[in-house]
């Protein structure tokens, strides 16, 4: 398993398969912009830590969508705002079918770093009783002059939506697939 280090001077938009890495380090330099999409290919369990360091006025968007069928995906994100006015938005979504997701996210803003904005969201859908989701969104904020949010949701697909789609002639399986795709798409529509 590999560790990979990225230094972003200007702009980077890329898709990364976390199954290939145990640790990913990103340093987003002053005024640089990073847009990172994460996925997890293959049937193997994965365990990855993503470390992000943001210099002054750096901006980073982190998105992940993972389908866990008979596997476990563990993800740790560690975002440190090193410079003033740096921005970060994290949105990680998991759909588990006989699978497990584990998300631990931490945003750190030191006392002397101000005017930062950082958001972290983790959403999980469990498709059956044999699935689990663990979520630990954490903030370590050391001054008042910042905008920060964090949250997590764990639930199942909406029965009303399933009933509605079936009443339109979609099979149960098609309706489930549509709602999972919709769950994945909200992410991109909200932020891009």
């Amino acid at each position, binding site marked *: 398993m590999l560790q990979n280090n990225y230094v972003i001077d200007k702009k980077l938009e890329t898709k990364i398969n976390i199954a290939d890495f145990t640790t990913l380090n990103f340093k987003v330099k002053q005024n640089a912009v990073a847009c990172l999409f994460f996925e997890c290919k293959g049937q193997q369990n994965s365990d990855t830590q993503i470390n992000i360091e943001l210099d002054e006025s750096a901006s980073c968007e982190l998105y992940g969508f993972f389908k866990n069928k008979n596997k476990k995906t563990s993800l740790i994100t560690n975002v440190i705002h090193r410079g003033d006015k740096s921005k970060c938005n994290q949105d990680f979504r998991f759909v588990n079918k006989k699978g497990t997701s584990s998300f631990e996210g931490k945003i750190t803003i030191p006392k002397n770093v101000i005017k930062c904005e950082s958001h972290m969201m983790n959403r999980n859908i469990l498709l059956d009783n044999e699935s689990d989701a663990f979520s630990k969104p954490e903030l370590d904020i050391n001054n008042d002059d910042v905008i920060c949010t964090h949250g997590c949701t764990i639930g199942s697909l909406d029965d009303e939506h399933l009933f509605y789609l079936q*009443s339109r002639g979609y099979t149960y399986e098609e309706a489930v697939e549509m*709602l999972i795709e919709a769950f994945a798409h909200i992410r991109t529509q909200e932020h891009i």
Partner: protein
Amino acid sequence: MLELKNIKIKIQNKEVIKGLNLNIKQGEIHALIGPNGSGKTTLANAIIGKETYETSGSIKLNNNDLSLLNVTDRAKAGLFMTFQTPPSIPGITNFNLVNNFPKSSDILKLLSKYKKDMLKLQLGQCWNQRNFNEGASGGERKKNELLQLLQSNPKIVILDELDTGLDVDALKIILKIINEHKSKYGWLVISHSSKVLKNLNPNYVHILQNGKINETGGADLLDRIEEKGFHNATK
């Protein structure tokens, strides 16, 4: 067409519909009217196959028994319901949900019909790209239900609380469309408002009270209800 015999519905062991019979033929509009909580929506959901209800009795469409079919198969057999409160589904666009065309069909022809129907319903082009009913008003949601109806080819249409959230102009448009398509389908129109039902000039009016149809009559029954209220109209 649709034949309901001795329908009984229980929800969490409470009997909501207590033995109901109804026959709807093509081209007929049946108005089902009753006070709040009388079981109108429950009946509609049960007809299209809501599985969390305990439903007994027989539901036949053109002599085919639908009782054992699931929601999807009943829809495919020809039942279409417009929902009282259609949900909003983020992540699926209005266009994608409505346009579930079979692969063999003539897509250009269907798209052209879809566009015409959107114009009729006064839904703008940006409607297609918006998430399904997200941020939509009650009236827009009802128009979206009608738009879906016009793209499908059912045998029986159930309109659950047609007028919820509709302004006068939108109601006019929808009533016009229903009247245009009256002869194509059999209709079960559910409402607690006799005024809206009068505009449809129904062939039959049924009053649902305490889980049973207490009275069946022609459109004139609506006048009696307006004048005397549900309770006295059935005496």
